[in-house]
C-alpha cells in the first residue's frame, strides 16, 4: 500500500520493541493488533480504538488525533532532515498523557507531546535509535 501525503498530525515519536526479539524485548508481545514486529516498519498510534484512547488519553495534553485502526498506513517524516518512512499501525501507544509538555526540537523548531511510537526498523529509517525521540510530521 502506498503512503499518502495528506497531513494527519505532528509531534514527537519514540520507539519500542515488539514481537520476538532478544533481551527484555523477548517478553513483549505482538501488540494490540497481533502483528507487531520490531524488524518491520510498524507503529503504535494512541487512538487505535476506544479502549486504546482511554489508556493513552492524548486529550490530557490537548491532542485529539483521529482514530486509525490496525493496518492503517501513515507516512512519517523527520521534521528537519526530511527523511521519511511508511509504516503500518500495529499497536496502541504511546501513553501520551504521561509526556504532556515534553518537546523535541531540531533547527530551532520543536514538536510537543508523544503522538507516535515506531518499531526499531521504522525509527532507524529516519533517525538514530540512540536519540530516543524525534520531531515528526505524520501524513496519510
Amino acid at each position: 500500500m502506498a503512503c499518502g501525503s495528506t497531513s494527519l498530525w505532528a509531534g514527537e515519536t519514540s520507539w519500542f520493541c515488539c514481537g520476538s526479539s532478544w533481551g527484555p524485548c523477548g517478553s513483549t508481545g505482538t501488540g494490540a493488533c497481533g502483528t507487531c514486529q520490531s524488524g518491520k516498519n510498524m507503529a503504535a498510534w494512541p487512538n487505535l480504538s476506544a479502549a486504546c484512547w482511554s489508556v493513552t488519553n492524548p486529550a490530557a495534553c490537548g491532542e485529539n488525533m483521529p482514530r486509525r485502526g490496525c493496518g492503517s498506513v501513515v507516512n512519517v517524516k523527520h521534521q528537519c532532515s526530511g527523511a521519511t518512512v511508511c509504516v503500518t499501525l500495529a499497536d496502541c501507544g504511546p501513553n501520551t498523557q504521561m509526556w504532556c509538555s515534553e518537546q523535541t526540537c531540531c533547527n530551532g523548531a520543536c514538536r510537543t507531546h508523544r503522538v507516535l511510537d515506531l518499531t526499531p526498523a521504522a525509527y532507524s529509517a529516519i533517525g538514530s535509535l540512540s536519540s530516543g525521540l524525534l520531531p515528526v510530521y505524520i501524513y496519510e
Partner: protein
Amino acid sequence: MSERNGLGRRRLLTSAALGGATIVGASALGGLDADAAFAAPMPSLDPAVSTSVFVDGRVGQIRRGVLDVVEADGTHKLIQLTNATSIWKLETVTAEAVEVGDGLYARGVQMPDGSVAADAVWVNIVNLYVTIRGIERSRLHLSHGRNAMVGNIVEKKTTASFRGGALTSNLSQLRIGHHAQVLGAWRPADDSVDIARISVGH
C-alpha cells in the same frame, strides 16, 4: 548533511565492504555517528518494499569484522562492519566492543553476496517503559511489564529528564512509583540494563 553526502556515504559503505575503498576519514562524510548517518533525506518507503536492510538479532559469531547474526526465526545474517560503520553500545564504540551473545539492530546496504554492509549498528539498545520499584546508589529496581529488572546507574553516563524537562545528571528526583522510559544497553551476562537516559513522565 546534504543528500549528495548521504548517497556518497552509501557508495562508500558498499565499496568499503567490497574491499575496494580506502577510508580517508570521517570529515568527508560529516561525521560517523549514527545521528549524522541518518540525517540525510531518504526516499519514502512503501511498507512492502524496503530499499535498505534492517537486521534484528543476536551475535552468534564474529570473524574478521563480520558479525554472524541470528534472527529470532533462526535465519543467519552476515553483517559487515567497515570504517564507515557507526556502532553504539551505551556510547559510540569501536567494533572491538561487540561481543558474541550481544543483541543488535543494524541498518545497512544489501551486498551482492547477501551480506549487509552496515551503516549503523546499535548493540544491546533498549527503550523500555518501566516503573521504578526501588532505588539504590548505583542501581534502580524496575518493573517492565510483568518482569523485574535492574537498571544500572553508570557514572558520567546516566542522565534523567523529569516531566519533559532538560536532561540532567542529578537523579535525586527519582521516586519509587515513577513511570518512566529507559533508554540503555542491555547486559546479556546478568540481564540488567545500563541506563543512558531515564525519562520520567507525569
